[in-house]
């Protein structure tokens, strides 16, 4: 177990370093230098470069860069809000995105679990014709949720619920953050719900077909009791494996969805920084996204190793 944990931890650290290295490399590859002024003499340029540390070797500058990044110093914004520290811009927007992401995760998980268990029970042996139809309907919903990108739901909802029928505010409003971000939460949660529904259904129907559930049924336990006692506990395990996939979906989805509803989160910041070529902001946000993802992966790997001993054995054997 220790070896497994250590290995996963080292991989995460290496990955983050690699991300930082790629970001640094991109900075280096960007054309132009800050001192491209013809009026500067050679001496003056050298003085300026010395003042900003640009005369040092590449490796030294990389180490400085790493040090700054781990201190949270990403430089200042060039275009979006001039001379504001990027870290400040990010930290003020992160809570909004977190709230929306967590909301989508919660809403999606609950509806996905319900849908999945419902489908599994209708799909279980001896459920009859209506059960089959109910199962097909649930699976059709999950296929749509899996295939259609979340921003399409966002666009369609913003047009119908926001613009046409005026049920919900079209854009984000500071005074009513809950109602005005509801559409974003729903559109992001559909993918989560679809993924969880599918996995829950597969896992739960395998549990329902198992001998011990058959025994429980023959003992006269009701559906509710079987659900509580066996199905939930045994099928949640599989759902953990798809969590990273969900996180990727949420991160990617937030970029466009936040833009569609003008939600002042990091996704919107990223997409406007891309548009404005605000390089420091893009680099910093890439690092933030990467660290969120890597941390989540590490946590899930460890969690999975704890829950399922087979994983860490095969991990060590490799």
């Amino acid at each position, binding site marked *: 177990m220790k070896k497994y944990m250590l290995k996963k931890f080292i*991989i*995460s650290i*290496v*990955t983050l370093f*690699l*991300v930082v290295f*790629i*970001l640094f490399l*991109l900075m280096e*590859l*960007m054309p132009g230098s800050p001192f491209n002024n013809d009026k500067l003499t050679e001496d003056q340029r050298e003085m300026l470069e010395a003042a900003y540390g640009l005369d040092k070797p590449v490796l030294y500058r990389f180490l400085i860069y790493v040090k700054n990044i781990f201190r949270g110093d990403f430089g200042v914004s060039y275009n979006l809000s001039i001379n504001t520290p990027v870290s400040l811009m990010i930290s003020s927007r992160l809570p909004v995105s977190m709230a929306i992401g967590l909301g989508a995760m919660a809403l999606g998980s609950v509806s996905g679990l319900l849908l999945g268990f419902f489908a599994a029970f209708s799909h279980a042996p001896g459920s009859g014709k209506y059960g089959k139809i109910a199962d097909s309907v649930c699976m059709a919903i999950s*296929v*749509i949720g*899996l*295939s*259609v*990108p979340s*921003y*399409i739901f966002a*666009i*369609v909802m913003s*047009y119908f619920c926001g*613009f046409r029928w005026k049920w919900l505010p079209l854009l984000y409003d500071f005074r009513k953050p809950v109602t005005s971000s509801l559409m974003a939460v729903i559109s992001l949660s559909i993918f989560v719900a679809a993924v969880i529904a599918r996995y829950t259904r597969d896992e739960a129907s395998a549990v329902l077909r198992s001998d011990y559930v058959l025994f429980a049924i023959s003992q006269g336990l009701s559906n509710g009791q079987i659900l509580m006692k066996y199905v939930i506990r045994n099928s949640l395990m599989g759902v953990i494996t798809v969590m990273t996939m969900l996180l*990727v979906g949420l*991160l*990617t989805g937030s*970029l*466009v969805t936040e*833009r*569609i509803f003008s939600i002042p989160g990091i996704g919107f910041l*990223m*997409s406007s920084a*891309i*548009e404005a*070529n605000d*390089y420091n902001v*893009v680099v910093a946000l*890439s690092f933030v*996204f*990467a660290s969120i*993802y*890597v941390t989540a*992966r590490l946590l899930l790997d460890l969690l999975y190793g704890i829950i399922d001993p087979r994983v860490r054995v095969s991990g060590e054997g*490799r």
Partner: protein
Amino acid sequence: MDQWTKEDFILKGNENDFTIDNTVSGDSYWKGAAKRFFGRKSNLTGLVLLILLVVLAVFAPILSPYDYAEQNLDRADLAPRIPYVLSGTEKYNGTGGAFERNKYQELGLDNVYYFFGTDNLGRDLFSRCFMGLRVSLMIALVAALINVAIGMNYGMISGYLGGRTDFIMQQIVDIAGSIPTLVVVTLLMIVLKPGVGSIIVALMLTGWMEMSIITRAQTLRYKDREFVLAARTLGAGNSFILFKELLPNIAGSLITQIMVTIPDAIFLETFLSFLGLGLPVGSCSLGRLISEGFDNCILHSYMLFPCVIILVVLMIACNLVADGLKEAFDPDGRA
């Protein structure tokens, strides 16, 4: 030693007596997969929709009387008009209340039919939608094929050679796989010039890993089987074993994986174009059309919905076919 000839043998018994017992014999790999695939309605629905879209993408821009890129400002913002179905009348919800307007009648265009209307530069949206579908499909197909080619070779080499090579190759995949796709693609698109080539490069850099993991697992599963041992005993070289013995057994998962990669690639293209990182303004792809349609959808909703519907149908069809293939080639979920 004398060579045996055919005449040395006498056929025993009447050959017409033989029948192959079909009740117990199993289907071949491909036949069984085809049977399972075509036996499910959802797979057929997906396949039919996909074929329909591909046919439309190929022929609709050719058959349409209007060019997809030709601008005609006199005919800008025309609502959809289809004979006997849509009259081309558009409803406006202005500040002065709702009113209806038929631009075809105002401009005196009697026998002119734009099935999906025109955009704000007067370009025919019907041709544009299917041209965009064609471009998106092509990007996705090329990206998927490249991904599969890279991932397949990587996975087979890693799984077949094993040992230290496998260990190092797997660590590379592990690390490369933990950098989020989103970050790689976004940064790449900022550095490279926007265009079809850069999108394909971005998709290539991020998509091969899953393929390599699947191929490696399959190679590990088959490489110690008796038929591989038999081939090696008969003196077959490594490349013969890899491509003639192992590859046919992995072919099913390769095809499945191509079908899984295509919708991913389409999604990334539309996503990047929507963010302004995909194809440059003026080019035509599903992502650009959706992005342009969204900018205009408050006033002219018809500019948004046809391309959104095409994308939705395409994604659902691809996913249905991919799911069907997964089940057909791997009925009990071993891979």
